[in-house]
């Protein structure tokens, strides 16, 4: 079986400007932040980003890499509004395809199952139909004759997800309470890249865990990257909680251009190792 391990830089080397890119996790939870940071160090831009948005969306919006965003929200969870997302929307920085949370899920599911759409009740009567004039409805062919929204498949050129463990072949495991939609993202994408807290031997995946923790199957994975603390500053239970102090610092900096420049210089201008060292220094200064 093929060894799919690679570096974050090699993942980014396979991405292209103009791609439709799915990003796993939810809000400020288990986001593939190390891969996002690597993406920010490249020149890739003009992306269509498909995400239950958190700071992944914020960072890409701040760096002006998004042409179109497909999302039901962007939030930092403990801080309700994602500051870069709100600022980017208010300056008209990208096109928005605003979908309901369930519509988004069924769009990913349709893409994973190679269907052009799936029917949902959600969306009818709401302005989601108005701000997305491409959305169509479909009438049940059965006796009920009900009309539903035909949520189009959210097919992805590539996707980035972060899980707790993976093996070199791309079998990936979540150990926290929620799988989010990471398996769907992988199935909906032509190429899926999994970062993980720790790369382990296949035989060790179930040493201390139940089989249903094995979320992502290798048949849907193109590359695997070990990135310890790679979801930082979002949560990656049980390996690490959200770094609330750092997230606050991020949110404060995001509201002021000069402070954001300083934040970028300190944390985002060099490689991942430098980032993690700067985060450690941030906490030492506060100790």
């Amino acid at each position: 079986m093929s060894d799919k391990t690679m570096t974050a830089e090699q993942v980014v080397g396979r991405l292209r400007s103009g791609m439709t890119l799915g990003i796993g996790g939810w809000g400020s939870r288990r986001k593939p932040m190390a891969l996002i940071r690597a993406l920010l160090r490249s020149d890739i831009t003009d992306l269509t980003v498909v995400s239950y948005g958190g700071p992944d969306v914020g960072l890409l919006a701040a760096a002006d890499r998004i042409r179109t965003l497909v999302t039901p929200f962007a939030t930092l969870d403990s801080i309700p509004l994602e500051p870069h997302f709100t600022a980017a929307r208010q300056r008209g920085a990208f096109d928005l395809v605003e979908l309901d949370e369930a519509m988004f899920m069924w769009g990913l599911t349709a893409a994973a199952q190679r269907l052009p759409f799936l029917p949902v009740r959600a969306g009818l009567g709401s302005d989601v139909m108005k701000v997305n004039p491409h959305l169509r409805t479909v009438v049940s062919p059965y006796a009920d004759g009900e009309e539903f929204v035909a949520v189009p498949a959210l097919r992805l050129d590539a996707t980035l997800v972060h899980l707790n463990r993976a093996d070199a072949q791309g079998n990936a495991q979540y150990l926290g309470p929620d799988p989010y939609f990471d398996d769907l993202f992988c199935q909906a994408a032509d190429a899926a890249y999994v970062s993980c807290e720790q790369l382990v031997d296949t035989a060790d995946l179930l040493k201390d865990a139940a089989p249903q923790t094995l979320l992502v199957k290798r048949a849907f994975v193109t590359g695997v990257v070990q990135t310890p603390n790679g979801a930082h500053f979002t949560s990656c239970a049980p390996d690490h909680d959200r770094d609330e102090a750092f997230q606050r610092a991020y949110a404060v900096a995001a509201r002021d251009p000069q402070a954001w420049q300083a934040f970028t210089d300190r944390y985002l201008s060099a490689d991942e190792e430098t980032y993690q060292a700067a985060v450690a220094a941030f906490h030492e200064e506060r100790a």
Partner: protein
Amino acid sequence: MSSPTTGKTTRAEYCVVACAEVWRHAGEVLAGPMGTVPAIGARLAKLTFAPDLLLTDGEALLIGDVPALDARAQVVEGWLPYRQHLALVATGRRHVMMGAGQIDRHGNQNISCIGDWSRPARQLLGVRGAPVNTLNNPTSYWVPKHSTRVFVEQVDMVCGVGYDRAAEAGPSATRFHHVPEVVSNLGVFDFATPDHSMRLRSLHPGVTIEQVLAATGFALTVPDEVPYTREPTSEELRLVREVIDSKGARDREVPA
């Protein structure tokens, strides 16, 4: 500090009781409170008159006990990750209480953005699950600061679907649509009018009809007789003050 059971009932406590009442006849469904006062209300309902309610820990677990607001549950009775949560909504076995950046007289709610959607003056959260919620399970609203900025003639982006918009969209939209109540820091509101427009159902003690009308940006239906929101029982006050919210988080959301 007022006595656990005899001190004067605060506005926040009337709001807690009003929110709890939303779930009185909900049955064996998931209570989905968003906001501090609704979270206290849902716990109070479960501890008293609605023991069959299901509650989450705010993430993927259904909890089997009723912990204090800031405490971890000791008992887990089920698993509800987001994918199951969204699917549960479509079963209808949930009564959610959402917030509202704006709400209009037909119960349309907006949490997405203020101003023109294409380039908003103020971007908020996004639509989140408001469209799926309102078409599938009972959806009530909580507004901690009742004002003409929130209670508007027309919302800027319909996220949660109100009665007029559901009717326009047709039978698929109205089939399971139900907006039972809106609770604010001033009173309780419902849509029990012939055209399903918003009606003042009760005033929290200490609030006048004039105050409500001045803080509402549309023509609100006011019946001839408007009752006051009911008093909490002494046991309810004890549960709120000593068990669920001993640190007074409710007072930060609804100052006295």
